[in-house]
């Protein structure tokens, strides 16, 4: 279980000349749920984009699947397809719910996955809406389609960027339990960005606090909330964060 999936070393990310992220060292273990918490603009989403290889680091390297990637070495399509992200605001295609869920498989040239699609739709509670146009769904339903579309790919790492922000408690609960099942039953590694420290506490095995692009502290969930080593972590978990 303690095999590492990602090893980040000396990562920086700059837009123009503004530095937005500086991670000296971060390991993500295979099969864990790691929550990234911190105020807006702390670099959490930037870190996720780097983990999904949607952007390249300005410097430093990411070791993933035994290969090292940096500004000069980009992962192959096959490697990139081992990771996917569910974004805060789901962008669904103007197609049916079912076609949206099948989309990632179709990109990979898999066309005979009807049973798997049905199964995944049922897992997120959308079996009855399979043939509805995706654009007609409510926010929570749309987010569940986005989650189904990602999990059907059986990624090694599933990145969740504020997956349940602005959703009602029912959908928040549903999304959390789907993520948790996925982690326990399939061993999917999950990196969860959230504003909601209670959500981090409910789901994560480890939690990392980011402030101004730097990782302040990474600790097991219990320690992070009960006995953090950094005073800023304590201030953040108590809702006293000033920044």
């Amino acid at each position: 279980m303690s095999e590492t999936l990602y090893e980040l070393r000396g990562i920086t990310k700059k837009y123009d000349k503004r530095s937005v992220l500086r991670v000296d060292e971060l390991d993500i273990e295979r099969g864990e749920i790691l929550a990234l918490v911190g105020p807006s603009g702390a670099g959490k989403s930037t870190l996720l984009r780097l983990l999904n290889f949607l952007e390249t680091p300005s410097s430093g390297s990411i070791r993933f699947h035994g290969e090292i990637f940096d500004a000069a070495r980009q992962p192959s399509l096959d490697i990139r397809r081992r990771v996917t992200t569910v974004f805060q605001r789901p962008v669904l295609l103007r197609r049916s719910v079912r076609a949206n869920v099948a989309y990632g498989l179709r990109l990979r040239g898999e066309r005979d996955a009807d049973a798997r699609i049905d199964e995944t739709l049922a897992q997120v509670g959308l079996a009855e809406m399979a043939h509805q146009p995706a654009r007609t769904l409510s926010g929570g339903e749309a987010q569940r389609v986005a989650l189904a579309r990602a999990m059907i790919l059986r990624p090694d790492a599933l990145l969740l960027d504020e997956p349940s922000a602005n959703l009602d408690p029912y959908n928040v609960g549903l999304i959390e339990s789907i993520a948790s099942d996925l982690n326990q039953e399939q061993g999917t590694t999950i990196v969860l960005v959230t504003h909601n420290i209670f959500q981090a506490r409910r789901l994560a095995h480890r939690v990392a606090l980011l402030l101004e692009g730097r990782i302040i502290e990474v600790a097991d969930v219990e320690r992070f909330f009960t006995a953090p080593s950094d005073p800023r972590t304590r201030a953040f978990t108590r809702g006293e964060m000033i920044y």
Partner: protein
Amino acid sequence: MIVSRDPQLTEIVLLSLQVSGIALLFSTLIGVPLGALMGLSRFAGRRFAIVLLYTGMGFPPVVVGLFVYLMLSRSGPLGSLHAAWIPALFTPGAMVLAQIIIAVPLVAGFTMAAVMGVDRNLRQQVESLGATSWQSAMAAITEARAGVIVAIIAGFGGIISEVGAVMMVGGNIEGKTRVLTTAIVLETRKGEFDLAIALGVILLSLTFLSNVVMLRLQGGTIDD
């Protein structure tokens, strides 16, 4: 005359559809990828390219006709090559070429606007799902399909109705390069207003019917 199904008239109608249809096919094959590229990518000189494209959307057909005429004439840069793939002046091939030049900017310009209207986060989303840059561009075009079809309709409208270019490079030769628009000009000049009006009605009906077909292609996207 419409009722008697004059063979000459049939010929004119078929040639109109053939010339503009082939020109539209090529314009779509060139214009849609070009518009998508200009809408989706960021490159040096893009703004200037967009201004050129917008200018192209307003090209007066008669000026395009003049340009193609000069290019294809015996002493022109293309005409003097005598290559098999270069159409000769006063042939349907020359008319197709002129109409492609008119329609490409229209198709590309409207396609560009349509793909630029697609949610900017779509690309990030589909790439995160494992799309190659080609698949991601296809996703943007598919999302913008209603707009892309409008682009094709605009291209068709621009060339089926134009008279300046086909007159200039085709020459309105009876049985060879006469199309509906040039026939209308000729019949009006001759004072044959009944015939001119009949031809006009046929032209309008053809345009209407082609748009019905296109609208069917747009399918459900109109309603959602």
